[in-house]
């Protein structure tokens, strides 16, 4: 029993990271119908932004270190997301969707490749500094809950709730939903689609950066290729929940995290990735629109 509870706690904290990254995929898809493969690299850059900020900027050596570094990384990645959208995606806005998709893969590879050059991050793994004192938060008969796990989970939930409010309770969110529904009609109503799209990238990238910092703190080995596997899992989470759907991304992420923890805990680790991607295939076969997805196409 203790073992099961421990597996569930581990799965929840890993799943909340997947959920944060999945939100970025889902946001961009919801607005642009584009799978932004460069998103996993933005996540990696978020981790490194935090790493360099904590290391080089003396202002970031004092408390509340965690929040300052987090804010810095989110801002840096928001800028990166903005730049990627402006340079790589906007010129292709009116071209067939496949062009943008291939460009996204290209941008992802480019950032990964550049990151591995010694001039940037270098190929060898780096050690992410501890931004918060970790410790035992709770020990219930052998079930251990760490402060960092709690911080990861709480941060993820706070960010997700914030995002949800922003999308459904603000003018900007309404604009985003309008552009997602029909960009041309939204433009006729006085909404500036380019701005809304840029803002979507800013939002998604900032969330990815937050995930990058949370991953860096819990698993302090960061490297330029760290985004690949986590990004793919998050993508699976987004599809599982119904890509384009914010609640679905959250649920999908947490579900994938839990499933992985249980598969490794009670099965073998060799099947960890196989099960995650197996779920993707099953979802695509049985309910292509995902758990929370609508069957009706958003665009006609």
């Amino acid at each position: 029993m203790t073992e099961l509870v421990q597996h569930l706690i581990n799965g929840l904290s890993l799943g909340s990271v997947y959920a944060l990254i999945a939100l970025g995929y889902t946001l961009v898809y919801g607005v642009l119908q584009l799978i932004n493969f460069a998103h996993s690299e933005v996540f990696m850059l978020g981790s490194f932004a935090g790493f360099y900020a904590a290391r080089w900027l003396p202002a970031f050596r004092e408390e509340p270190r965690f929040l300052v570094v987090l804010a810095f990384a989110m801002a840096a990645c928001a800028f990166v997301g903005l730049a990627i959208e402006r340079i790589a995606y906007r010129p292709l806005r009116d071209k067939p969707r496949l062009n943008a998709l291939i460009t996204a893969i290209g941008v992802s590879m480019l950032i990964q490749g550049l990151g591995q050059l010694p001039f940037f991050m270098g190929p060898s793994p780096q050690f992410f500094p501890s931004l918060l004192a970790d410790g035992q938060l709770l020990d219930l008969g052998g079930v251990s809950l760490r402060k960092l796990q709690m911080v990861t989970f709480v941060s993820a939930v706070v960010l997700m709730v914030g995002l949800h409010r922003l999308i459904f309770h603000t003018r900007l969110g309404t604009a985003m939903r309008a552009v997602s529904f029909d960009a041309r009609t939204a433009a006729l109503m006085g909404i500036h689609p380019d701005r809304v799209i840029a803002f979507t990238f800013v939002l998604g990238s900032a969330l990815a950066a937050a995930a990058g910092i949370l991953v860096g703190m819990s698993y302090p080995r960061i490297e330029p290729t760290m985004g690949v596997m986590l990004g793919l899992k998050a993508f699976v989470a987004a599809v599982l929940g119904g890509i384009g759907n914010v609640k679905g991304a959250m649920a999908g992420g947490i579900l994938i995290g839990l499933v992985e923890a249980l598969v490794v805990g009670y099965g073998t680790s060799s099947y960890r990735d196989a099960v995650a991607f197996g779920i993707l295939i099953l979802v695509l076969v049985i309910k292509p629109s995902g758990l929370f997805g609508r069957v009706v196409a958003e665009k006609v």
Partner: protein
Amino acid sequence: MQVVRPRSILVALAASVSLFATSCEKKSAAAGAPAGDAGSKGDAHAGEIVFGEVSSLTGQEATFGTSTHNGILLAVKEINDAGGIDGKKIRVITYDDQGKPTEAAAATTRLIVQDKVHLVIGEVASSRSLAMAPIAQSNKVPMISPSSTNPRVTEGKDYVFRICFVDPFQGTVMAKFARETLKVDKVAVLRDVRNDYSVGLANYFVESFGKLGGTIVLDQSYSAGDIDFKAQLTTIRATSPQAIYVPGYYTDVGLIARQARELGIDVPLLGGDGWDSGKLVEIAGDALEGSFFSNHYSLDDPDQRVKGFLQKYEAQFGQASDAMSALAYDAAMIAAQAVRTAGSTDGTKLRDALARTKDFQGVTGAITIDSDRNAVKPAVVLAIKGRKPVYAATVNP
């Protein structure tokens, strides 16, 4: 060792050394040895003994190559300074293989066919030694690998030797150490299923530990590159082992150690030479205190021979030696001894002399070549204390 283990501290240095090596002619006489006599060109090599060396002086594993090169230079210098072998000096011809198996093969052919060396020393990486070995074998020129641990390197090739132990041996060593020194009965295993090295070590550990009367309570696995090991560790925790054997590479082991401590597992972790990197404790922090791993050699081995070697090495090259240079030093010394006992530079006679090597007192321990041309020698076990590996024990085969 089969996989890149970057040691970034040495990279800058290695790069400069390799630049030097490539810029001033590919073919270079050993720094410490007098350059060959003018008349020694051609195939006779009258009055001198010629060793060929193939090393990765540039490329990703440049530190391995330069350390090996330095070790050989140091050994040859010592022998020549003491008058050489029967009045003949040793000359070393070195080629860089850039860390590529194809280059290593080409360099070996050139050394044997064109330069007509009497013996070849190389390589560190098993993949490159495997490319070189058939060439040495078919030309009947003895080859000594200082540090390739893959069993296949010497298999079925009676001219190919190695002076390090093979991968499986490390698993046995750790089983012996855990059972006899740590006196533990219950051990869990966490192996990297994507890595032959890790699987090999784990298999031999499981086998030997069982034979010695211990119990393997759980055999778990992970895949290199994973970042979350909590699920495996939670399952391991439930079996309450007295130690966990994790024969992976340092990048994963660092995270595993951390997460084990986070889950409240406080038993020592045990591992192999894949742990040997400064990055290990950087990632693991204090999580590995009191853990042990097996290695070829220890910097603070109390043995006088090791201390003497370290001093000489540092005086010559201005940097601390590592396992690679110690192994290369021993390789060159064993080669020289073989020439001495054979009383000839004939390939077949040299081979027979090498095969007879018994209890050679090297820096990396007493080396005996067995019938499979692998070295039978002790391994050292290092403990991690104060975030540094320190000598804990020597385990004999």
